[in-house]
């Protein structure tokens, strides 16, 4: 009964309203270009009103970095080299974090985004446990900013309270603004209209963002690259962040347990 075969790739979620699905936002990370400069991290911090990660917070292992650069040291014979991988919320199609939330505080919207509803969240932290990418962050403390910084808070982004989860939104405020502007100019959204803070800040152009449903967008082209892979594929989470493997004589196959 060969029709009983199912694809080894995880099934994409059933669209709630297929007619309404116009975009599927995707990010491509070219590891060959990434230098681990952390510019994306800072940009994200500034854009999204993320509380300051002080030394004390670091020592508590309670840093909030919607995008982070994971650094791994690899020993090749004598020389030791650093390898970087920027990790952020992968906006998974089969996001493990979504179904476990008892109050629907996180769910999948029609643009393929894994959205977080701050008002609903009661802070069970189950979603954080069930995120394989460690991409979800909990506000252990009430966020505070020195008075000098209070004026730099982004008015388009909620300031989160203590006791709730937060994570990368693909800068949904920028997506919405771009859509609004396009609508006002009476044109459809072009590739490159939406630029999340991290993408904007990346000096080596390692990050690119766009709509994978648009066949000739940049991300669609990059996604066809033979270096393309997704992290923790065997879990079948169906990430919407695609990585391009580092071109590196020493680089083993893009499996994840070649770190440390």
């Amino acid at each position, binding site marked *: 009964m060969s029709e009983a075969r199912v694809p080894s790739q995880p099934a994409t979620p059933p669209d709630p309203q297929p007619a309404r699905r116009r975009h599927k936002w995707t990010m491509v990370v070219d590891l060959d270009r990434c230098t681990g400069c952390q510019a994306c991290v800072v940009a994200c911090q500034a854009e999204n009103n993320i509380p300051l990660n002080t030394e004390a917070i670091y020592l508590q292992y309670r840093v909030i970095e919607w995008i982070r650069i994971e650094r791994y040291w690899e020993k090749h014979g004598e020389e030791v080299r650093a390898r970087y991988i920027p990790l952020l919320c992968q906006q998974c199609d089969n996001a493990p974090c979504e179904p476990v939330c008892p109050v*629907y505080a*996180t769910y999948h919207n029609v643009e393929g985004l894994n959205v977080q509803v701050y008002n609903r969240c009661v802070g069970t932290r189950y979603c954080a446990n069930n995120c394989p990418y460690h991409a979800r962050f909990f506000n252990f403390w009430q966020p505070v900013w020195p008075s000098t910084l209070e004026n730099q808070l982004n008015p388009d982004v909620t300031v989160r309270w203590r006791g709730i989860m937060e994570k990368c939104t693909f800068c949904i405020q920028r997506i919405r603004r771009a859509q609004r502007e396009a609508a006002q100019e009476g044109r459809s959204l072009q590739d490159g209209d939406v630029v999340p803070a991290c993408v904007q800040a990346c000096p080596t152009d390692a990050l690119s963002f766009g709509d994978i449903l648009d066949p000739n967008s940049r991300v669609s082209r990059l996604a066809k690259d033979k270096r393309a892979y997704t992290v923790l594929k065997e879990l079948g989470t169906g990430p919407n962040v695609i990585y391009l493997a580092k071109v590196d004589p020493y680089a083993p196959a893009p499996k994840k347990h070649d770190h440390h």
Partner: protein
Amino acid sequence: MAERGVLGLFTSAEAAASAGAALREAGVEFEVLTGSPYPEGAFGEHTPPHRLYVFPLVGALCGFSVAILLTAGTQLAYPLVTGGKPVLSIPPMAIITYEGTMLGAILFTVLGVLFESRLPRPLLGLYDKRITLEGWVGILVRGEEGLLGPVERILREHGAVEIKRG
């Protein structure tokens, strides 16, 4: 209540049993009051049948349907996709429905137990504390005044240590 009753108290189960047998032969309906359970029919009494087993079934049905409506309704009313699972996911429904079914069954069973054992009972009526305190056995007969005389005699014959009228 119009009809009166007589309660005979016995210190030993054997005496009470013989009295019960005698009453039965005399064709008198009687109730037994004990401070602890005895095997069925120990006093020759006959216990009317009960319908306890109906209650859990009814309760289970109620619980089942409510739970199904609740779970299915919630999922369909808010068609939010989570984790790529179908909007109407059966396995989670199964779990909560199971709990609902059991809850209904348990609640109705408890109600059934109270109902079938005719509780709560506002007035104790003819009763004696020594039934629970001393383990005495009480044999209670209700009926017309005329009937109670001979009954009382039978009870005394079989060694009732005390007779209460009421």
